[in-house]
């Protein structure tokens, strides 16, 4: 990289243009009087009330979405703790009843040597829900408390959370299949236990928390925070 008179590194032309644009006109659509339709992704004028293509009501920013998202996330966290404490299945084997929590179920899989299955179940029912809650918590904190973390990385993380969240359903599918198949009375019988409902609600609420949130709110703070990294 060549140096100019001031001793500063010279900008590559493309970046220079980008920097110029940021200085002269703000890159936010809101400032340019444009508004994206949340339903069909069409660009509309801010003055419009309804999208010209899909007729949905337009809103420039949904400021209430932070509170809604926080509320859903906090509820989900409480339920996830319950889902981990209470048993998720109730197994009767030759008259002996055992309660299995999510964790003891996985421990049992490891003990019987089924490592690949144990890893899949561990990812779907422990890793993904906790990562999702911590990730969303971090994202929401960054908006609410102005924490200076790279927005770009946060956004990538958010998209991963959005995509991976649904894989937690694996555990519920496995439970429903097991419950439907294993019903031989006192000999061998599997039943769902209270944590199953809590776990189902965790999935629903965290997916909703991610869906409800207006991610553009994070990026509106561009002017107050330098975010070049």
């Amino acid at each position, binding site marked *: 990289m060549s140096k100019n008179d001031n001793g500063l590194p010279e900008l590559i032309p493309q970046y220079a243009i980008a920097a110029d644009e940021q200085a002269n006109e703000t890159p936010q659509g809101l400032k340019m009087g444009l508004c*994206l339709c949340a339903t*069909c992704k069409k660009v509309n004028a801010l003055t419009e009330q309804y999208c*010209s293509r899909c007729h*949905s009501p337009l809103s420039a920013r949904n400021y209430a979405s932070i509170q809604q998202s926080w509320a859903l996330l906090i509820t989900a966290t409480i339920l996830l703790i319950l889902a981990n404490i209470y048993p998720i299945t109730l197994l009767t084997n030759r008259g002996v009843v055992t309660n299995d929590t999510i964790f003891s179920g996985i421990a049992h899989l490891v003990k019987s040597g089924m490592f690949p299955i144990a890893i899949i179940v561990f990812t779907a029912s422990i890793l993904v829900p906790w990562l999702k809650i911590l990730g969303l918590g971090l994202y929401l904190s960054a908006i609410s408390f102005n924490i200076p973390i790279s927005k770009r990385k946060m956004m990538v993380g958010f998209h991963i959370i959005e995509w991976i969240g649904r894989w937690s359903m694996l555990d519920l599918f*496995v439970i429903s299949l097991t419950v439907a198949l294993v019903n031989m009375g006192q000999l061998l019988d599997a039943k769902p236990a209270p944590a199953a409902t809590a776990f189902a609600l965790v999935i629903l609420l965290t997916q909703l928390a991610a869906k409800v949130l207006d991610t553009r709110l994070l990026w509106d703070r561009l002017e107050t925070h330098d975010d070049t990294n």
Partner: protein
Amino acid sequence: MSEPKSFKAVILCRSCDFVIRKRALPSNVRALCPRCDTALYDTPYCSLNGLLALCITALIVFFPANLLPVLEINFLGSVRTTTVYQTAVEVWGQGYWVVGLAVLASAVIAPALLILSILMQVLIIKLNLRSLFWQSVYRRLLKNHGLLSQMTMLEIYVISFLVSAFQLSDFSDVYFGMGTLSFTLLFLAILFLQREYNLEHMWSYVHVEK
């Protein structure tokens, strides 16, 4: 209703509201937001005939996939089979209706509605139904497409019966049947259907009244 010129050349990032000049893309290339890396758009094209063919395929395999047992176990001579629908009903019957409803919605109802919705959309375009009624039906279908698409979780279900089969094989014999095959085919048909489908392209078919 006339639109300002700037609207057509410009798009906004749905995640960060960045203003981006729109340009044509070569095939198999996606445009990412330069600021936040969100996928914005790709080739705005999907083959309607391809969609129709995949819809019909999915519709045909939907019935055996949901009526035939997907998993069968033999425990000391007593045989148990189950279909996807029965697993949901069984859990519901035990009092865990939230779980039952979640299973039913994501493995049976959402895929069925998704197939019917896309079939309906393709037919509305193909038959050139431009009356106010059909156009509002079309809009409604497109608005709900994202939700249906997200609720369809067949890929997860396919992994689930593999996991269950491994777990159950610990103490009983496990068999797959025609139902398992049909369900896997249904998953593949819907996977390709979702890959082929392009929501942005479908929106461009909306007949805007002047």
